[in-house]
């Protein structure tokens, strides 16, 4: 039983896994790990202008090759991240960035998750408060006589007696 469960979980887990494909096959040598890491981040986060749903790392299209080569040049030139991003945006527009920059046009995009989260939390709090008030109202709704009756119903004086009474009642009803 346990083994099947584990197997099932593993299968499900594998189903949800996805590996990004890397078609970039050229070899670029970098002097240090930081530059290599920067290059990797750039090709992961920049979109191929020709093949629109792939990043620069994931395609062999000639334009992506050119852009990767240009990235290597710029990184080796010691250009800053901002300069490199500006260079790309100047030529291919904001479109090339998979991670859009914060600007009036993308404010909604960046703001929506925060807004929705805050909205959700507020709604949740309101609902919880409303429920609590309802519960209180139900509690207060019982008068003292009702409470006594409730107590007698919940804790009958003797079970046998009530059983007998119930028997009698049902017999009477049958007759």
């Amino acid at each position, binding site marked *: 039983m346990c083994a099947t469960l584990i197997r099932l979980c593993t299968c499900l887990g594998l189903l949800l896994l996805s590996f990004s494909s890397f078609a970039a096959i050229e070899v670029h040598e970098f002097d240090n790990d930081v530059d290599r890491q920067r290059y990797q981040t750039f090709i992961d986060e920049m979109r191929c*202008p*020709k093949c*629109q749903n792939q990043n620069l790392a994931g395609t062999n299209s*000639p*334009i992506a090759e*050119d*852009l990767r080569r*240009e990235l290597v040049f710029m990184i080796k030139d010691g250009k800053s991240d901002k300069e490199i991003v500006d260079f790309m*945006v*100047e*030529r*291919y*527009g904001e*479109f090339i960035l998979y991670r859009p920059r914060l600007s009036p046009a993308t404010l909604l995009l960046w703001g929506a998750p925060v807004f929705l989260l805050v909205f959700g939390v507020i709604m949740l709090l309101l609902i919880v408060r409303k429920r609590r008030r309802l519960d209180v109202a139900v509690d207060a709704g019982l008068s003292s006589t009702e409470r006594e009756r409730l107590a007698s119903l919940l804790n009958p004086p003797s079970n046998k007696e009530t059983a007998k009474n119930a028997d009698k009642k049902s017999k009477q009803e049958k007759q």
Partner: protein
Amino acid sequence: MNKQRLFLFIPLAIFVLLGVLFWRGLSLDPNEMPSALLNKPVPAFDLPVLPAPENPQGLVSANQDMLKGKVSLLNVWATWCTTCRQEHEFLNTLKAQGILIYGINYKDNAEDAQRWLAELHNPYVFSVVDEEGRLGLNLGVFGAPETYVIDKQGVIRYKHIGDVNQNVWTKVLDPIIKELQTQ
């Protein structure tokens, strides 16, 4: 109407909103991107000119300043590009009408390119050889053919992606060029 009941229409409202958005999305062309270089000068370059008998005498290399003076088209082409072949004939007719067309031979083999011009006629004033595609990259080219409208000051005024044909010419490019010529 009960106030609570109105809330039941929220899903419908969301559905309608999304429906409108998606319906609109269907009719948009994802390839249509505004050129980032619009209203900016042609990026600086200094590239060899593709040898052709129609070239200006003794022209070996060209730079961005040579595009100034008259309104012109800057056409990115290559022999490996099938759509370029389709549009080539129309470019020839444009040349016959007296339109100045400069070519960028983009990431191509120079011999193939020369043969292509000899066989299919040469509509270009001259073509520069952009073998590595760096001028193309500076222009924001991501495929061929692409055609830019350049004004008298050498500033990019319009970018057309895809082939230039009669339809595009009469509807889009010709009016733009006519207007620029009056300036």
